[in-house]
């Protein structure tokens, strides 16, 4: 594998690696916690797709915005949200980001520009466009990253929002995480185009097809798209080709995907791949790796403990936070 074309320092690359690991371990903890009946409501894990969130978010500045989906844990962690409060939210606890009101599908940290995961497929796309419009009105140079799955690209919201963003040259980076499957439907069964990125031409914006399991490739593309957006040249559409390893959600475990296909993609593990890249650069020794893994494990352990020991919300809390 060639040395990637990236401006990231070794430390920055190690941070990407750590972040991907943290997502992976977090999701494993979610699955284990679901087995223990600690998760309240549904949860959609991001395992296998870590390079996408991490590659994109590492191209953003601190005051940029992002919108996410039902499969949002990875985006939150890549954005630097606190895994303790995330897990507490998934457990429906008072200490969660949303006080237990939102659950897995609605984790948000508005103070960090994370405007919210979203349970409506395609629902976040116009919102991201609007956030970018808000930035324009405020004459700020903020950029918005908008995540969605390939299943969302057949929603009207995808079309309307990208057209609106394109015609106004709004600072959005549209990131389609094409993991090849929606809930039970394969991409080719539902989507009349070979690549999602090919749809960019319908809006006269750049479309990028990226190996979504290559975090540096994702990052490099994101940097270009973010620059373009910040410069006022308008949105881009990035398609990260990737795969989810687990069934659709903890509530939907019936999995129609061919086992061979799943195995094939597991062999393209974005974390193992990046580890190898780092090792080949002599950027990651076995000791360093062990240390990172240990630190990540400790964070997750702490998060599980925090969430498990956090109080349930008071019933009266149900009627608070409706209006400002």
């Amino acid at each position, binding site marked *: 594998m060639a040395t990637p074309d990236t401006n990231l320092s070794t430390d920055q690359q190690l941070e990407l690696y750590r972040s991907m690991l943290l997502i992976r371990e977090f999701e494993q903890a979610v699955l284990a916690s679901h087995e223990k009946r600690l998760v309240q409501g549904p949860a959609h894990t991001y395992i296998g797709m870590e390079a996408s969130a991490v590659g994109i978010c590492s191209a953003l500045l601190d005051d940029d915005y992002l919108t996410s989906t039902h499969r949002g844990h990875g985006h939150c962690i890549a954005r630097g949200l606190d895994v303790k409060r995330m897990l507490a939210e998934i457990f429906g606890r008072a200490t969660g980001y949303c006080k*237990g009101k939102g659950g897995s599908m609605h984790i948000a940290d508005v103070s960090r520009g994370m405007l919210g995961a979203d349970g409506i497929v395609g629902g976040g796309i116009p919102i991201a466009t609007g956030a970018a419009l808000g930035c324009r009105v405020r004459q700020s140079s903020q950029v918005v990253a908008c995540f969605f799955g390939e299943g969302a690209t057949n929603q009207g919201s995808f079309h309307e929002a990208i057209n609106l963003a394109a015609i106004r040259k709004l600072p959005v980076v549209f990131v389609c995480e094409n993991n090849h499957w929606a809930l*039970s439907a394969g991409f080719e069964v539902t989507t009349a185009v070979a690549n999602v990125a090919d749809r960019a031409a319908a809006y006269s914006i750049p479309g990028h097809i990226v190996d979504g399991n290559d975090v540096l490739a994702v990052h490099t593309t994101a940097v270009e798209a973010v620059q373009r957006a910040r410069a006022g040249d308008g949105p881009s559409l990035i398609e990260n080709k990737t795969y989810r390893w687990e069934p659709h959600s903890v509530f939907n475990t019936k999995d129609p995907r061919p086992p061979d296909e799943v195995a094939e993609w597991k062999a393209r593990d974005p974390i193992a791949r990046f580890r190898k890249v780092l090792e080949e650069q002599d950027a990651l020794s076995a000791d360093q790796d062990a240390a990172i893994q240990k630190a990540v494990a400790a964070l997750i352990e702490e998060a599980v403990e925090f969430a498990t020991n956090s109080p349930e919300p008071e019933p009266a809390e149900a009627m608070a936070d409706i209006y400002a």
Partner: protein
Amino acid sequence: MARTITYSEALNEALHEEMQRDANVFVLGEDIAVLGGLFQVTKDLLDKYGPERVIDTPISEAAIAGAGVGAALAGTRPVIEFQFNDFMTIAMDQIVNHAAKLRYMTGGQAAVPLVMRAAICSGIGMGAQHSQSLEAWFAHVPGLIVIMPSTPYAAKGLLKAAIRNPNPVVFLESRLLYAIKGEVPEGEYLLDIPGSVMVREGGDVTVVATGRMVSVATSAAEEVGRDGTEVEVIDPQTLKPLDTATIIESVKKTGRLVIVNEGSRTCGYAAEIAAIVSEQALDFLDAPIERVTAGDVPMPVAKVLERAVLPGRDDVVGAIGRVLG
């Protein structure tokens, strides 16, 4: 004794029978073919009727609804599925401005025999975008029929009737009812539209309850029954058109009315029942009407919060107590 099957099996049977009977009946929706539906209501239809009549769609709720309208106009009888009642918000233009109004706008030329199935998925921590019970919206729309079955028996008989009805029908199921079992005869039967069910007779209080709330109301009625209070429980089943007469008659008998509905309170379906009674049987009321509904709040995920928001047995018991004074 009749055989006992689940609510989702009853719905599935209705679909099998109607697709068998009429080659123009077909189903359309997300994950309904290969997966058999998120809640298995369309199970085995693909194997039996093939991919031209059992169609997995893109995630495009507005187009699914519109395609249903168009296919109905073109002489077929589509049954479309929305996985969650909430997702119908995406398709409201097609449902309201097209399905409901095309017959009227064309001066009676068009018929839109379209069944729109959707699940109300409250009670399992799905949160604010997956737990709504929007029957009041649909009942507000002239041209739609609105049905909410509360038992396997009703589920089958009403779904078959809905499919044969020449009008657009919003057919609202309940996630928490799918697994409940009930008696369902083997042979074919259809239920009336309109047509309500007197679930339980009693002379002291009338309780009108819809969908999943029927079992909540019944269990409350049993609870207060231990103290000798006789509660009449009415399940309207067809919210629109509504069998108003049964409700009015009951209120005239009991003089007391509690309405139990899972939608949020303001402008919910319970308000309509209250309004009808306050117009048509006011003089017979011996106590203020009580509405037992979800709070005016988006649905929270945490169990303790969701429980606080949804109407439960104790809420109904409390309301019955209040109307009895």
